[in-house]
């Protein structure tokens, strides 16, 4: 079953055409990984899917319903997705626990005790239950990133969007987050993420998409796209990465 469908997506910033005719289907339970050079539009694509950016053309459907229609309630759509940003974006004035319980309590009207219980479960899962009372500024980058993942996951979203979640982490923590994401996928969570780490992409992806010049130039299973790329541009990109 197709959970997310992107067709003919276009996004510009002034004269800068960042996404130009992007087509992408994400099946429920699938993990799609976006790769591409810095500035190729990975973050922009994720932000468009989350309706944080108004698209300039094209259609995005979630569960068969067009969400780019200006008549849909964007807040309701967003509450069915989780997103973790490249720069964590935790709220510095709230404790770790309050960061995680904010949306359940305010958006989904979950009673405080229950929200805190599920938040603690989630924090425990990312290994930070002991930091619940700490302020985000007092955590390391990797810890902040894991709080951000817990915050995105606590609503049980249908779709989880992750923007370079491992770029701030040491190899050991990358492994931890990777395990976490694998766990989540095993639970049937649909994920779309961007990364610069090909090893990470290879391990976690069902489908790898290579973004270049505002389009998805090549997509397929990691073995094909990363192992035996068809497009010369993809080959070029990957060869520069390892050297």
């Amino acid at each position, binding site marked *: 079953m197709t959970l997310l469908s992107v067709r003919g997506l276009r996004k510009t910033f002034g004269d800068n055409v960042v996404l*130009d005719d992007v087509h992408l289907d994400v099946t429920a339970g699938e993990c799609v990984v976006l790769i591409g*050079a810095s500035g190729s539009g990975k973050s922009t694509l994720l932000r468009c899917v989350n309706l*944080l950016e108004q698209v300039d*053309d*094209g259609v995005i459907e979630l569960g068969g319903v067009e969400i780019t229609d200006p008549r849909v309630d964007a807040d309701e759509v967003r509450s069915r997705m989780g997103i973790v940003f490249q720069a964590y974006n935790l709220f510095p004035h709230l404790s770790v626990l309050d960061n995680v319980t904010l949306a359940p309590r305010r958006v989904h009207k979950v009673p405080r005790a229950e929200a805190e219980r599920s938040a603690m479960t989630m924090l425990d899962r990312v290994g930070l239950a002991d930091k619940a009372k700490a302020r985000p500024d007092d955590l390391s980058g990797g810890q902040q990133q894991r709080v951000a993942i817990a915050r995105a996951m606590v609503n049980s979203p249908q779709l989880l969007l992750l923007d370079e979640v491992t770029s*701030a982490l040491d190899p050991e923590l990358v492994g931890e987050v990777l395990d976490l994401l694998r766990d989540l996928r095993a639970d049937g969570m649909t994920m779309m993420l961007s990364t610069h780490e090909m090893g990470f992409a290879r391990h976690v992806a069902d489908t790898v998409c290579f973004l270049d010049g505002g389009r998805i130039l090549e997509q397929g299973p990691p073995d094909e796209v990363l192992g035996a790329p068809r497009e010369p541009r993809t080959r070029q*990109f990957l060869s*520069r990465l390892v050297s």
Partner: protein
Amino acid sequence: MPSASSGAQAPDEAVGAASGGLSGGLSGGPAGGPGGDVWTPSQTELERRAYRRSRTTRSALISAVSTLLVGAVVIWLVTSSEGWPRVQETFFNWDKAVESFPAVLKGLWLNIRIMLICGVAIAVLGLTLAVMRTLKGPIFFPLRLFATAYVDLFRGLPLLLVILLLGFGVPALRLPNVTSAAEVWGGVAITLSYSAYVAEVFRAGIESVHPSQRAASRALGLSHGQTLRHVVLPQAVRRVTPPLMNDLVSLQKDSGLIAVLGVVDAIRAAQIETASDFNYTPYVVAGFLFICLTIPMARLTDHVARKQGWHGAGGTL
């Protein structure tokens, strides 16, 4: 925090450098530049735009109609009430308005000058005080203490009291080579009082800049002063511009308080005009002129606030 963000940058930069090298080789390739093809919006996009446009038009229409309706009802209620002719005669007498206008306008010029000169002095003094309060380190303790005491003192004293103290008190000392002009001492009093408020606004702005910004700047080798000047203050000032504009509007009105010293500003001029025949139209004229000054400023405040919006992610919501 700084170590985390520099860690985040590293892979980006590596790839950025690589892609920079690649795009040079690719630019002549068959992929073509984005500027080459002409894009026409799809049917769906056109429908979306039409829908958004219709929503905008609809809200504009609704607000226009409701404004007109409410306005009409208010005007009808007022003009049809029993005492209206007498009210009109006493407060909205056209001939009296025309007659008093030049004097009130001349008085207003004093208000405007005071606002402009004091405005600049307040901004400078307020910013200096705010910076003094944020200085760290034991050597600066006297400066911090002074700034704190200053703010406590002048925020606590009623403005009128300061004006009376300086405006009547200083000239009474008959100091040689010191002016006894009431406008000057009134202006000084306003500046002293207002800079205490403005200093607190600036300080709030300075403290709202995230510590990682200072860390990033110090890491680049900028000194404490340079960090303040090039990194912290520009962000702080931008953030507090709307509340400062608020203070400017209120300064413009409070400039009238120096009338207690006997100088003729717009309000005093209006008072003199009313004294002859108990017709209060000159007050309405003065009020009208003040509003005419304030409204452009209020719109400017809105505009500044909107233009600032928020940089980055928050701005799009």
